[in-house]
């Protein structure tokens, strides 16, 4: 937690800086949320315009990354390798307010912290990530998640699911439920199912995995299904929406998933629940009725509240998926656009790239990529670009993509946290 002294220092900087800063053409930017989007934005702002006063509001001292956390669940990686601190972010000249932002006043242009401190801003970036929508799945509560982990925010939940799998007897049934779109990391549930199937095949071969889905189509579907048929026949079963895969309620006391057609009692139950933008986005008035945040595609400024930019998983980014790669790319474009706006310059029309790798086994990687540009108020796929790994690639190609996936994680975390 932040000491009173830290807050005083931040508020002192914030209240003394404006007159000087404006004279130099700089300004004050507050960033809420220190994940792939927020931490990247804060560091990039200082890199592009060292005269800016940049404050990052983030309650955690350590960030635990979701990409590769499926590897942790199956014992291929330790949680420690997912953890990143903010020392380099602070080293870049970013003031860190260790607190959960409690309110945004869009009219007064302030962010309020729990102790009453108000941070004034010229531009605000909200990067709150996702909140789990506890009310959306009857029976699924924070308490239920201690028995049926979601593991969709990396940390204690990741470890809990791993321990449950390790403790399960050979011959047990693992059940995963995947939500309807949109949600964080579209291919994530399928990578998880793949790697858990690999774990079961390797360690507990009499076991089965059932993936109950609220969708009929999903990211990299053909690649996943081909791999499942080749690697995990009879072990991994995917139940689509049309085949009754949508889970309508859960019963934590018996680890049971209920659909319109059946009841599935699991030995290990992983519920990936419906999601929405982090609560501060709703409080700030930047989320619409869908629960997500509409933004314009040049600078990711909210279409509902001028002066507030939303990046990362919380935002509606047209064709761009909710991924760490996308969040990092959006943050860099957003930072450059804000620097241009504060200096009274026009920023060029951006181009963004996304690349998402998934592992279907430790040495078997697949990917999807896209290039995006603004068009009629949306980010759209640049026609002719992007797509998934070839369906007919050989083992060397899959192995290379697994290697590139690991390389990507190393690079993106260094790019974000230093």
């Amino acid at each position, binding site marked *: 937690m932040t000491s009173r002294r830290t807050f005083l220092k931040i508020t002192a900087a914030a209240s003394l800086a404006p007159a000087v800063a404006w004279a130099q053409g700089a300004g004050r930017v507050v960033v809420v949320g220190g994940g792939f989007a927020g931490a990247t934005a804060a560091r990039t702002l200082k890199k*592009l315009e060292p005269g800016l006063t940049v404050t990052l509001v983030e309650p955690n001292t350590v960030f635990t990354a979701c990409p590769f956390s499926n590897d942790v669940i199956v014992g291929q990686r330790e949680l420690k390798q997912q953890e990143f601190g903010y020392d380099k972010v602070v080293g870049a000249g970013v003031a860190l307010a260790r607190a959960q932002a409690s309110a945004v006043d869009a009219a007064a242009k302030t962010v309020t912290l729990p102790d009453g401190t108000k941070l004034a801003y010229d531009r605000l970036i909200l990067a709150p990530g996702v909140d789990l929508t506890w009310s959306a799945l009857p029976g699924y509560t924070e308490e239920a998640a201690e028995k049926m982990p979601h593991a969709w925010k990396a940390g204690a939940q990741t470890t809990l699911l791993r321990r449950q799998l390790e403790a399960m007897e050979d011959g047990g049934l693992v059940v995963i439920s995947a939500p309807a779109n949109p949600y964080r990391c579209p291919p994530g549930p399928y990578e998880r199912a793949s790697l858990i199937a690999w774990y079961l095949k390797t360690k507990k071969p009499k076991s089965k995995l059932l993936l109950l889905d609220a969708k009929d189509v999903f990211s990299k579907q053909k690649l996943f299904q081909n791999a499942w048929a080749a690697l995990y026949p009879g072990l991994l079963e995917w139940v689509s929406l049309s085949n009754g895969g949508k889970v309508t309620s859960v019963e934590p006391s018996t680890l049971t998933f209920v659909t319109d057609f059946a009841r599935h009692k699991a030995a290990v139950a992983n519920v990936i629940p419906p999601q929405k933008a982090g609560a501060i986005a709703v409080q700030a008035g930047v989320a619409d009725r869908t629960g997500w945040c509409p933004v314009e595609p040049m600078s990711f400024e909210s279409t509902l509240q001028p002066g507030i930019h939303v990046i990362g998983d919380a935002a509606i980014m047209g064709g761009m998926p909710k991924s760490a790669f996308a969040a990092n790319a959006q943050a860099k474009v957003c*930072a450059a656009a804000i620097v241009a706006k504060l200096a009274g310059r026009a920023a*060029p029309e951006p181009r963004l*790239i996304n*690349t998402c790798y998934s592992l279907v086994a430790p040495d078997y990687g697949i990917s999807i*990529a896209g290039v995006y540009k603004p068009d009629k108020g949306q980010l759209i796929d*640049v026609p002719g670009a992007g797509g998934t*790994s070839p369906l007919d690639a050989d083992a060397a190609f899959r192995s290379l993509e697994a290697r590139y996936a690991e390389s990507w994680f190393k690079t993106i975390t260094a790019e974000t946290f230093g």
Partner: protein
Amino acid sequence: MRWLALALIAVLLSSGAALAASPEGPPGASSCSGCHAASQSADTAVPSLAGRPVADTVRAMHEFRAGTRPATVMGRIAKGFNDQEIDTIAVWFGAQK
């Protein structure tokens, strides 16, 4: 390759020089460092693009786009950029240290 050199000089003399000096880079460039480490000293399977000769980056992107250079993901990404965009990105990375 003479046309390429001439084209690159033209780019450098126009908006390219300003872009090469700007820390944010031309459109698209900031996304590259998601996979290509900003630091040349990074020990990763994917090479850094910082300080790479401009003609090398341009040739690689053209070949990725045409499908004549073996690729995993770059063939799909290169198709999202036209010649001029590739030139400005290559010039900018060439000027990075």
